[in-house]
C-alpha cells in the first residue's frame, strides 16, 4: 500500500513538468522493436529520428522497443545504430503506426553513414547521451588485447575514464574513487556479487554470451539503485532466431562454445554458452609436486531463451552458473560461484506504454576448506536474493517520456558457517542468518524541453527493512555489547527510508558540442566486509543492520562534449565531486570470520572523491581507438584513523592514462595495442621495527601515507581472419600482455631476510611479465 501511495505522490510531484507537454495538433505514435536483420537480436540503444523533425529522436529501451509520438504528416524515418547500416523509411502518418525495424550489420571497417539531415540531435552519440554514461558492445572490444586472449568486457571498461583496476591479479575495480563493492553489476537484471574468476584474473562474463554493457558513473537513472559508485548493466544475447549457429574459441587457458538458434518456428530463440579452463588438466602432468597438487579451474554457463507469445508479449528466461575451484597443495582450497536466473515478461499495452516484469534469483556463495590428518574444516558464507521488479515506460509524446516502477529484493545472507571434523581444533559454528527486504519505488521524467535542452529528473525512494528472526545487539564505542534483543521472524527491527533524487540536464550548444550537468544520490544497503588485501573472495556480505547504517553518496558531475568530423571523433571532459557517508572501516585486528558480533569490529566514517576525466575517441576508419586520462582524488575520514583527518583511500590514483588503438591493416589482419599508466595506490609501510619474542615486528605510521610504484603496461595484439565465407568464419588471435615486462607490484612483503636472519627486507612480487597467448576463434 505504502508503495502505491508513494507512486501517486511521486506522479503528482512530476505533474508540473508534464503539463508543459500539452498536445495541440493530432499526434500519432510510431512504435516497434529494432532488431538485427540477420540474427533477430534486439538492439537496445538504437535510435529513431525523422529527417523533417529536428530535435525529435528516441532510443530503443533495453528490449529494443521504441515509441515516439509526432504530429501527423509525411516523414523519412531514420534508424541508426553503431556498427549497423542506417535504415530509412518513408512514412505517411495518419494514425498510430507499428513498425519493426531490422538493421543490417555493417561489414568491414566502421564508416559513418552520412545523412544530410537538418536534425542536429541525432541520438546515439556523445552529445545526446545522458551524462556519465558509456556503452560498449562486444564488437567494440573484440580486438582489444587482453590477458591470455580471453576477451573480457569487464576488463576492457577499465580502460575508460574514471574506471580503474585494482591492479594485476586483483579482483574488482573502482569507479570515481569508490570501493569495489560499490559497483552494481547486473547480468540480465540479476545482481552478480562476485564478478571475478581465478582471483580476479578474468571476469565471470563470457564475451560470447554478452551483447553489450552500459556503464553509469553519474546521473544514474532512477530505475537503478543500491550501489554508490556505478552501474554496469550487462545484457546477454537473445540468440539467433533466424538460423542455427555455433561459435567458440580455443585458447591457452580456456575454451568456449556457444550454440544458438531459433525455437517455435522463429517465434523464439535460445542461446547456450559454456566456458571452462583447463590449466588443472596440465598441472597434473608437471613434475614439480607443488604444481602437481595445485588444482585450479573455473567454468561458467550462460543460458537464455525467449519466446514471442504474440504481437505484444514476449517472455525471456536467462540464467548464469559459474564456479571457481582452487586448491593448493591438497591442504587448503576455495570454491565459489554465482548463479542467477531471470524470468522476464515484456508487454506492450499500447503504442506508448511498455511494461517489463522481472522475477530474479541470484546467489553467491563461497567455501574455504582446510584439510590435514586431524583437521578438516569447511567455512562457508552466502548471499541469496529473491527479486521482483516492475518497470513501465510511458511514451507520452515526442518530448515526454515517463519511467515508473517498483522493486523489492528479499536478501538472505549467511555471514558464516563452519563445519568441522570430530578431531578438528575448531567447533562447528553457524552464525545466524540475516534477513532484509530492500524495496524501492521510482518515477523519472525525460523531458525534451527544447531542441537543445533535455532534462531527465526523477525520484527514487528506497527502503531497507531489517527483519527478524535473530538476535540484534547494540554496542558501546569500545565494541562491548550493551544490549541483546531477540526479534521473531518477519518482525521489522529497523527501517531505513531514503529519498534519492536524480537529475540530469543536457544542453546542446551547437551541432557539434554540448554541456551536461547531473546530480544524483545513491544509497547502498549491502556491504562487503573484507580487511584483507589478498585477492581471496572469502569475504562477508552484510546488509544494513540496526548498527550498520546505509551508505549514502551524493554526486555532482559536469561535462563538455564535442564531436569532430561528422561524429567520427568524440571528445569529452567531465568533472565530478562526490561526498560519501557511513563508509565502513575496520578496527585493528577485526575478526570477520565466525564473528556473531562483527559489527562491534567496524568503524564508520565519511569520504569524498573528486576528479577530472577527459576522453578522446576515434570511431571510424582504419585506425580506431581512444585516449582516456583521469586526474582524481579519493579520500576518507574515519574517527580514530590518522587523527580523524582526511587521508587518501586505498583506491586513490592521482593520474590514470589509457591509450587503446586498433588498426585494420587489411581484410585479413587487424593489429591492436593498449597502454596503461597510473599513479601507484596508497599503502601503509612500516616506519620502524621492534622485537617481540625475539622476532622483528613492524611499527607503522599514518594509514596510506606511502604509495606503490606507478603502474604501467603495454599490450599488443593481432587478429588474423583466415576464412570469411558465408558459412564459416575463423580467426586467430595473438596477444602479448605486458610486452616490455614491467614488474608491477602485486604484493609487497616485509620480512626477515632469508640470507641474513639479522636483517629485514622488502620483497615485491609481480605477476604477468610478458604473457603471450594465442586463441583460435570460429563461427559457423
Amino acid at each position, binding site marked *: 500500500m505504502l508503495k502505491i501511495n508513494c507512486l501517486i505522490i511521486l506522479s503528482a510531484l512530476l505533474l508540473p513538468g508534464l503539463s508543459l507537454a500539452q498536445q495541440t495538433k493530432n499526434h500519432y505514435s510510431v512504435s516497434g522493436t529494432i532488431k538485427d536483420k540477420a540474427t533477430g537480436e534486439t538492439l537496445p540503444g538504437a535510435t529513431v529520428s525523422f529527417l523533417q523533425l529536428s530535435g525529435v529522436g528516441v532510443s530503443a529501451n533495453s528490449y529494443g522497443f521504441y515509441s515516439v509520438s509526432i504530429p501527423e504528416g509525411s516523414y523519412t524515418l531514420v534508424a541508426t545504430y553503431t556498427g549497423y547500416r542506417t535504415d530509412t523509411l518513408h512514412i505517411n502518418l495518419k494514425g498510430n503506426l507499428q513498425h519493426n525495424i531490422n538493421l543490417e550489420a555493417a561489414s568491414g571497417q566502421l564508416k559513418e553513414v552520412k545523412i544530410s539531415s537538418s536534425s542536429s540531435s541525432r541520438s546515439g552519440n556523445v552529445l545526446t547521451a545522458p551524462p556519465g554514461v558509456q556503452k560498449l558492445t562486444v564488437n567494440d572490444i573484440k580486438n582489444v588485447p587482453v590477458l591470455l586472449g580471453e576477451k573480457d568486457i569487464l576488463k576492457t571498461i577499465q580502460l575508460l575514464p574514471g574506471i580503474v583496476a585494482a591492479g594485476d591479479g586483483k579482483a574488482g575495480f573502482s569507479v570515481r574513487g569508490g570501493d569495489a563493492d560499490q559497483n552494481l553489476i547486473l547480468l540480465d537484471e540479476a545482481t552478480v556479487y562476485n564478478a571475478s574468476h581465478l582471483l580476479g584474473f578474468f571476469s565471470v562474463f563470457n564475451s560470447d554470451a554478452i551483447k553489450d554493457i552500459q556503464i553509469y558513473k553519474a546521473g544514474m537513472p532512477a530505475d537503478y539503485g543500491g550501489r554508490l559508485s556505478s552501474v554496469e548493466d550487462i545484457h546477454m544475447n537473445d540468440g539467433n532466431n533466424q538460423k542455427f549457429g555455433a561459435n567458440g574459441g580455443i585458447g591457452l587457458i580456456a575454451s568456449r562454445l556457444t550454440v544458438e538458434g531459433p525455437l517455435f518456428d522463429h517465434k523464439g530463440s535460445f542461446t547456450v554458452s559454456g566456458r571452462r579452463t583447463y*590449466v588443472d588438466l596440465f598441472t597434473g602432468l608437471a613434475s614439480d609436486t607443488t604444481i602437481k597438487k595445485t588444482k585450479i579451474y573455473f567454468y561458467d554457463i550462460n543460458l537464455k531463451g525467449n519466446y514471442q507469445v504474440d504481437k505484444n508479449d514476449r517472455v525471456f528466461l536467462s540464467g548464469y552458473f559459474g564456479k571457481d575451484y582452487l586448491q593448493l597443495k591438497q591442504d587448503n582450497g576455495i570454491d565459489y560461484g554465482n548463479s542467477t536466473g531471470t524470468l522476464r515478461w515484456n508487454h506492450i499495452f499500447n503504442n506508448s506504454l511498455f511494461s517489463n516484469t522481472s522475477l530474479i534469483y541470484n546467489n553467491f556463495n563461497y567455501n574455504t576448506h582446510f584439510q590435514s590428518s586431524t583437521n578438516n574444516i569447511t567455512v562457508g558464507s552466502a548471499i541469496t536474493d529473491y527479486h521482483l521488479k516492475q518497470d513501465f515506460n510511458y511514451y507520452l509524446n515526442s518530448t515526454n517520456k515517463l519511467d515508473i516502477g517498483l522493486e523489492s529484493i528479499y536478501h538472505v545472507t549467511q555471514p558464516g558457517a563452519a563445519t568441522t571434523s570430530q578431531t578438528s*581444533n*575448531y567447533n562447528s559454528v553457524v552464525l545466524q542468518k540475516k534477513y532484509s527486504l530492500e524495496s524501492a519505488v521510482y518515477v523519472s521524467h525525460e523531458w525534451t524541453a527544447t531542441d537543445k535542452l533535455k532534462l531527465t529528473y526523477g525520484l527514487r525512494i528506497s527502503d531497507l527493512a531489517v527483519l527478524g528472526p535473530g538476535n540484534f545487539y547494540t554496542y558501546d564505542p569500545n565494541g562491548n555489547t550493551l544490549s541483546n534483543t531477540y526479534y521473531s521472524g518477519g518482525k521489522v527491527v529497523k527501517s531505513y527510508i531514503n529519498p534519492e533524487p536524480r537529475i540530469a540536464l543536457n544542453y546542446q550548444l551547437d551541432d557539434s558540442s554540448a554541456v551536461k550537468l547531473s546530480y544524483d544520490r545513491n544509497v547502498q544497503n549491502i556491504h562487503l566486509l573484507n580487511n*584483507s588485501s589478498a585477492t581471496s573472495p572469502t569475504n562477508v556480505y552484510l546488509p544494513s543492520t540496526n548498527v550498520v547504517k546505509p551508505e549514502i553518496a551524493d554526486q555532482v558531475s559536469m561535462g563538455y562534449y564535442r564531436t569532430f568530423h561528422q561524429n567520427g571523433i568524440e571528445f569529452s571532459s567531465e568533472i565530478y565531486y562526490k561526498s560519501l557517508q557511513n563508509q565502513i572501516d575496520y578496527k585493528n585486528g577485526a575478526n570477520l570470520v*565466525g564473528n556473531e558480533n562483527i559489527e562491534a569490529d567496524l568503524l564508520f566514517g565519511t569520504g569524498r572523491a573528486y576528479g577530472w576525466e577527459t576522453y578522446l575517441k576515434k570511431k571510424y576508419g582504419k585506425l580506431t581507438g581512444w585516449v582516456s586520462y583521469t586526474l582524481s582524488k579519493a579520500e576518507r575520514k574515519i574517527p580514530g584513523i590518522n587523527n580523524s583527518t582526511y587521508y587518501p583511500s586505498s583506491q586513490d590514483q592521482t593520474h590514470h592514462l589509457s591509450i587503446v588503438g586498433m588498426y585494420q591493416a587489411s581484410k585479413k589482419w587487424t593489429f591492436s595495442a593498449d597502454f596503461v599508466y597510473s599513479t601507484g595506490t596508497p599503502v601503509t*609501510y612500516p616506519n620502524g621495527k621492534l*622485537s617481540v619474542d625475539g622476532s622483528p615486528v*613492524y611499527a607503522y605510521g599514518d594509514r596510506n601515507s606511502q604509495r606503490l610504484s606507478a603502474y604501467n603496461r603495454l599490450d599488443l595484439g593481432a587478429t588474423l581472419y583466415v576464412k570469411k565465407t558465408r558459412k564459416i568464419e575463423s580467426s586467430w588471435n595473438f596477444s602479448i600482455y605486458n610486452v616490455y615486462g614491467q614488474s608491477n607490484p602485486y604484493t609487497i612483503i616485509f620480512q626477515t631476510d632469508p640470507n641474513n*636472519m639479522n636483517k629485514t627486507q622488502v620483497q615485491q612480487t609481480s605477476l604477468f611479465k610478458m604473457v603471450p597467448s594465442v586463441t583460435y576463434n570460429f563461427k559457423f
Partner: protein
Amino acid sequence: MKNIRAFLILVSLIIAFSSCTKTITPPLNNTPQLVIEGAVSDTTGPYHVNISKTADFYSDNVYPTVSGATVVITDMTANVTDVLTEASAGDYLTHTITGTPGHAYQLKVMLDGKTYTAMSTIPKPVSLDSVTVDFSVNNNFRPVANYQDPADQKNYYKYSMKRNGVHVHHFQTFDDRLSGGRYIRDKLDCDTGTFHHGDLVKVDLVGLDAGAFNFLKEAEAVAYDNANLAAPATPTSNITGGCIGYFSAQTVSSKTTVVK
C-alpha cells in the same frame, strides 16, 4: 600425444614463471618510538622487562636499549611490590615477586617524566599434553602442540619453541574463540628447514590474558602476514602512556620431543 604433452607443460610453465619476486628498497622513514616488553609468569623468576626503541627497518635487528627507567611490578592481589634492577642496558629484572594464577599484576615504568602503566592477570593454567612432529611436508617438519582447551573459560595462548636449547625466532598465537572445549592439535609455523632429524624440540604453551593476547595476535599478523593486511597498523599495546609493546602475566607449560 607427445606434442600435446609438451604443449601442456609449456602452458603450465608460462603461468608458473610469469610471476616474479625481487627485493626493493622503498624509502621508509624511521621515527624512533619507545618499546616495553615485560612478563610475569607462574614459572620461577627472575622476570624481565625490556625497554628499547624501534630500529630503522633497513638496519640490523639490533634495538637501541633505554636505560635509567624506574620499573615497578606490583602483585595487586597479594599486595607485593618489586622494584626492578637494570641488570644490563635496557634489561630490568625482578627480585622477589612470584607469579600466581589468578593474581593481577601492575607494571609501572617511569622514564623522562612520563609514566607507563599496564595491568595483566595470570589466567588458570592449561597444561600441554605432549609435543609431536608433523612430517607431512618434506624438509619442513613442524612441531605439533597437543592439549585440552578448558571449556569453561575463554583462553588465549602463545606458542614459543626451542631447538636444541636455542630460542626459535617465530611466535604464534591461538585462542579458543571458535574452539572452546576442543582438544587442540596445533601445527606450529616455522621457517622451512628449521628442524632436522635428531633435533630436540621444546615447546612452551603460554597462557595469556586478553590484553597481552590482542597485542601478540596483531603483532603476529604484522610480522608474518603483512602482505595480506589491507591496513597494517602498529599492534595495539596494553600499556597506557604512549608506547609500543605489552605486559603479560602468564602461565607457561613446556614439553619436549626429539625429531625422529
